[in-house]
């Protein structure tokens, strides 16, 4: 009974939080954590099936820049601009992923092709600096003093917190839907052995395309949300290879096979960066990535399931001794 109730109670507590506690800085950190958690969740939707994309920085960049450019240049409200950006990102994903899957580019090769994709997006943003501001970044124009439903610009952090919370919850919902769908079983079969999966009647290319487009669209939404909240985007913060690697890293640390893993990853990485920044000031430039890098290596060698994943595996082993008594298969994707 408590297991059923717990998520709802936690959700209610999160909704009530900004009304009880309104300090701007912690609220800002929470919004940032929620937005990145959603981005990381979007990556893990496909990443957990062995489809390691290093191109998600590209999708996020498309989401952010298309939304901002349509607003500034064409005066198109983000209510229309964000769907256009999502469609653009989905189209880009289709364009690259279809031939990849059709010609069975997997593993290393898939990671490197998608790496080229984030390289392209980054270079295009930099090269069209007359329109996008290049590496100096880009700012959507403020509308009516920066607080308008039409422009999706809000001065109040509480509003942004609730929006980010809703989107993040939506991301978790999608994750669970995928987790309980036939698509999951098809993709797990594919990640084990493509030929065997195809022989049992799984349409390998179509199933992989579905999850890739879903993941790319969600990532673009995260980019658009980040742009609307921060009101400033630059190729380094929303696009490119380092953002792609950052996503992979946070998910691996949090736990790639559990729904809240990416969120735990985002909480850990962002809090780490903030704590280092506050305690060391400007001297801390680079400290956070130093710790990230070491952690990433250690996690992959010693704890490939991530923090939350390993914790939950231990927990369920303790609750159900029978499960622990069974020979545990390494890398099992069962969620308790």
């Amino acid at each position, binding site marked *: 009974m408590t297991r059923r109730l717990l998520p709802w109670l936690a959700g209610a507590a999160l909704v009530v939080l900004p009304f009880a506690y309104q300090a701007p800085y912690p609220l800002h950190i929470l919004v940032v954590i929620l937005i990145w958690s959603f981005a990381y969740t979007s990556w893990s939707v496909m990443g957990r099936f062995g489809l390691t994309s290093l191109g998600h920085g590209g999708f996020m960049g498309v989401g952010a820049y298309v939304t901002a450019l349509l607003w500034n240049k064409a005066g198109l409200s983000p209510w229309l601009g964000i769907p256009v950006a999502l469609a653009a990102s989905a189209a880009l994903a289709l364009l690259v992923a279809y031939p990849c899957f059709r010609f069975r580019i997997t593993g*290393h090769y898939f990671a490197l092709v998608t790496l*080229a994709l984030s390289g392209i997006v980054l270079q*295009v943003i930099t*090269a069209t600096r007359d329109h996008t501001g290049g590496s100096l970044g880009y700012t959507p124009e403020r509308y009516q003093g920066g607080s308008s439903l039409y422009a999706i610009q809000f001065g109040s952090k509480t509003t942004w917190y609730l929006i980010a919370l809703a989107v993040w919850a939506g991301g978790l919902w999608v994750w669970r839907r995928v987790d309980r769908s036939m698509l999951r079983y098809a993709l797990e079969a594919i990640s084990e052995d493509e030929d065997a999966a195809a022989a049992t009647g799984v349409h390998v290319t179509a199933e992989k395309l579905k999850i890739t487009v879903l993941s790319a669209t969600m990532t673009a939404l995260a980019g658009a949300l980040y742009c609307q909240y921060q009101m400033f985007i630059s190729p380094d913060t929303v696009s490119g290879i380092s953002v792609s690697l950052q996503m992979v890293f946070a998910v691996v640390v949090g736990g790639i096979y559990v729904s809240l893993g990416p969120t735990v990853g985002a909480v850990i990485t962002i809090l780490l960066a903030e704590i280092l920044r506050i305690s060391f000031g400007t001297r801390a430039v680079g400290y956070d990535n130093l710790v*990230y890098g070491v952690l*990433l290596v250690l996690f992959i060698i010693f704890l*490939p399931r991530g923090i939350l994943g390993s914790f939950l595996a231990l927990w369920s082993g303790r609750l159900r001794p029978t499960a622990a008594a069974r020979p545990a298969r390494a890398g099992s994707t069962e969620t308790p």
Partner: protein
Amino acid sequence: MGILDIYLLEALINGVLLGGVLALLSLGLNLVFGVIDVVWICYAELIMLGMYGMYFLYTVYHAPLVVAGLACVAAVGVLAVVLHLLVIAPLLGAAPINQLLATGGVLFFLQSSATVLFGIEFKNLGLRLPVLKVSGMFISYARLLAFAAALIGMVLVWLFLSRTYTGAAIRAIAQDRHIMPLMGVDSRRIYVITSALGGGLAGLAACLLVLQYDVHPFVGLSFGPITFLICVLGSLGNFAGGFVAAFVFAEIIALGGLYSDLEWGYVLAFAFFIVMMFVRPQGLMARRS
């Protein structure tokens, strides 16, 4: 028309010279991949550290350029062995993608170590190498030197691989890593030697790059991705393929940069790469059918 031809020729020549450096960059990575079957995502960061090594040895400790270069090659080679023993060796049996991600972690680590230790300022050797002027064309001396050194480096590696006993063992391991240990080849030793060799080549590339470019902690990101693409395009682990791909890429960048900004040259090269992956998924010169 005449002016255009001169520019075109200059761009073509600069493309060839850039191709030499790119070929050297991809050679080390290709060697490591071909033998150990691991992609070092942090390869460009090893080069970045080598460039810093050159900078400090030359400008701070006033070592002669050649001595600094040799020390730098050796140091990066040792660094690569440390990387292999600490990170790659424990993961040899793991999923390939985990190895890729672990070296991604090393990338973060090296980049931020450089930021913390050396700061984010751009640094250079302060050398001004002359520019060669041939019938109206300007060709950088540093690039010419880099091209020549790259060719010599590649010939030496080729001689090592084809003429020595250890070289033969390395090629054998690259062909079949499961059978060779049964034939009495100590694969762990070969892996360490290969890592050292790959690192040494990264060190050589660092010496040559630092003559032309400023060094800063994020310099690896500017040529790292292109190096991976070259290796993949030439079929990972295939030296000849990597060589050809390096020149193809360099010409695309040089010619694309001639008609527009340099970034568009890169965009063209990346797009060409993606298209080629669909046309020839196993690379330009596929080893396997």
